[in-house]
């Protein structure tokens, strides 16, 4: 079955002279309808109850970090889209911020506002997929379709803004690539007016449904200390009760100028830090993103959206570490420049990579169905894990 490197020792307990049982080793293989992307879990199970689920990653590795060293500062931005294609704007933003820090470039105010508007729309898009797939993994196929329907509306807005629906390549070093087209603000506000009641409808349909909550409550409880120890970030960390958000604690861009709350799990329907908390934090974050977008669209000043950056961009030698609050948490980019037009090294630290390392610990004595719920609640996306 291809267990190279995963030689698990099969236990054969004899239950004190009774029937000898054997653990079953399953491969929740790379092709599976539920794992979010191409992931593989080697599951050692005793019937339905798992002893352990060991993740096996690398099926989606595309050497993006190495490609950065070949294509140069400007050419790498489309590749950052592919680091996490579900929420691509954040990666664009992070690379732009890193290059600007190294090169000492200041982004005009309108450019920063455009960036934040795009970021928050992308957060809504990513959370829609996350809660939709979570519902689908638990068995309800309808909320997924509703979430994708709403995501299509945002896709249309993004298409008008930058020309693409998934791999945006919207941001540039020094600002953004295109200004808001005429009439876009009105369309965005019309969408938000339409969307906010639909979040409530989503809640009514699935979030507090008894069967759904029974599947998620008290499953895979992660205490705040454990969450910090295992380096969880984003909604996973906040679902465990730790109030840490890069937008509030180390604000970048114009997040100081907008008002928003950071939802934190409260253990309202079970224990603090269970799957339900992580799920409900994402639902609430969508509402906060709507607030941020409305404020940005009102406050946005006039002016250029991009600073003057030479086509042959050569930042001085040095390194920088940049963090953005992506949909999946604190994404860290460590970029080293050696003074040439090509970056020397780029290292991306993503939230999903550390979250998947926790699966092995969290999955002990869970049932197989719970493993699916846990993977969905961590909002793992394979491109982010493997890059």
């Amino acid at each position, binding site marked *: 079955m291809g267990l190279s490197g995963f030689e698990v020792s099969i236990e054969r307990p004899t239950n004190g002279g009774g029937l000898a049982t054997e653990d079953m080793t399953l491969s929740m293989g790379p092709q599976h309808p539920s794992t979010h992307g191409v992931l593989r879990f080697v599951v050692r199970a005793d019937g339905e109850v798992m002893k352990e689920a060991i993740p096996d990653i690398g099926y989606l590795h595309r050497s993006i970090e190495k490609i950065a060293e070949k*294509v140069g500062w*400007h*050419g790498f931005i489309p590749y950052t889209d592919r680091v996490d294609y579900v929420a691509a704007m954040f990666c664009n933003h992070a690379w732009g911020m890193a290059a600007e820090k190294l090169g000492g470039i200041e982004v005009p105010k309108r450019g920063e506002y455009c960036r934040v508007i795009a970021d928050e729309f992308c957060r809504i898009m990513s959370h829609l997929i996350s809660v939709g797939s979570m519902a689908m993994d638990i068995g309800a196929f309808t909320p997924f379709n509703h979430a994708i329907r709403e995501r299509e509306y945002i896709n249309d807005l993004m298409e008008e803004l930058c*020309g693409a629906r998934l791999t945006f390549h919207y941001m540039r070093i*020094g600002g953004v*690539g295109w200004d808001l087209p005429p009439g876009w603000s009105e369309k965005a506000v019309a969408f938000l007016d339409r969307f906010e009641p639909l979040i409530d*409808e989503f809640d*009514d349909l699935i979030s507090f449904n008894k069967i759904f909550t029974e599947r998620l409550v008290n499953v895979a409880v992660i205490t705040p200390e454990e969450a910090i120890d295992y380096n969880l970030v984003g909604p996973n960390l906040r679902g465990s009760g730790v109030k840490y958000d890069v937008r509030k604690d180390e604000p970048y861009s114009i997040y100081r100028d907008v008002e928003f709350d950071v939802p934190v799990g409260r253990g309202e329907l079970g224990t603090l830090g269970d799957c339900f908390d992580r799920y409900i934090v994402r639902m609430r974050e969508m509402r906060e993103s709507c607030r941020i977008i409305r404020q940005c669209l009102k406050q946005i000043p006039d002016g250029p959206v*991009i600073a*003057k950056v030479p086509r042959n961009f050569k930042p001085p030698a040095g390194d920088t570490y940049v963090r953005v609050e992506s949909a999946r948490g604190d994404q860290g980019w460590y970029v080293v420049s050696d003074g040439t037009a090509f970056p020397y090294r780029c290292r991306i630290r993503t939230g999903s990579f550390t979250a998947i390392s926790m699966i092995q610990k969290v999955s002990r004595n869970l049932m197989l169905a719970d493993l699916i719920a846990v993977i969905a609640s961590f909002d793992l996306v394979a491109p982010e894990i493997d890059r």
Partner: protein
Amino acid sequence: MGLGGYLRNLKEAVATIADGLAVTASHLVRKPYTVEYPDRLEGDVRIQDTLPFRYRGILEVDLEICTGCLACERACPIDCIVIDAAKDKAAGGLVMTRFDIDMGKCMYCGLCSEPCPTGAIHHTPEFEGADYSLESLVRRFVKAPAIAYKPKKAGETDPEILPVLERGMRYVGEFASPDAPEKE
């Protein structure tokens, strides 16, 4: 779990399930949202014609206004644009013998269309590019060796080139520029 908890479980189950059923029932009477591609929309409108001007579809090169500066070839991170241009005194300028874009490699990022001075290379709203062989994905734009375009300082006067140039400049003008005038 005492009797109170038991009955509360039952009540919550019934209430939340009934609410979910009501939401689903309300969807049954809503119109669907599907756009039945590849059928045309009302008025025989193709989907491609409803896409925004900035849409990054299949690349197209207007050779009449291409200046042969090779900025797009340099900008492409995947090296899918191959241009052969050589100075030819006899023909009086830069002569282009090859302008190939391998759409099989292209990732539709738009890095090529940004530095183009005239907007000769631009994305179109076309997205239907499926074909039966990899070779057919390579778009060859030079049918016969052509002289590169030289932008006229006093503005273009040729009536055949002018609309193409205007469209190209409009495409390039959509990109953000650091010296953009103050907008409303």
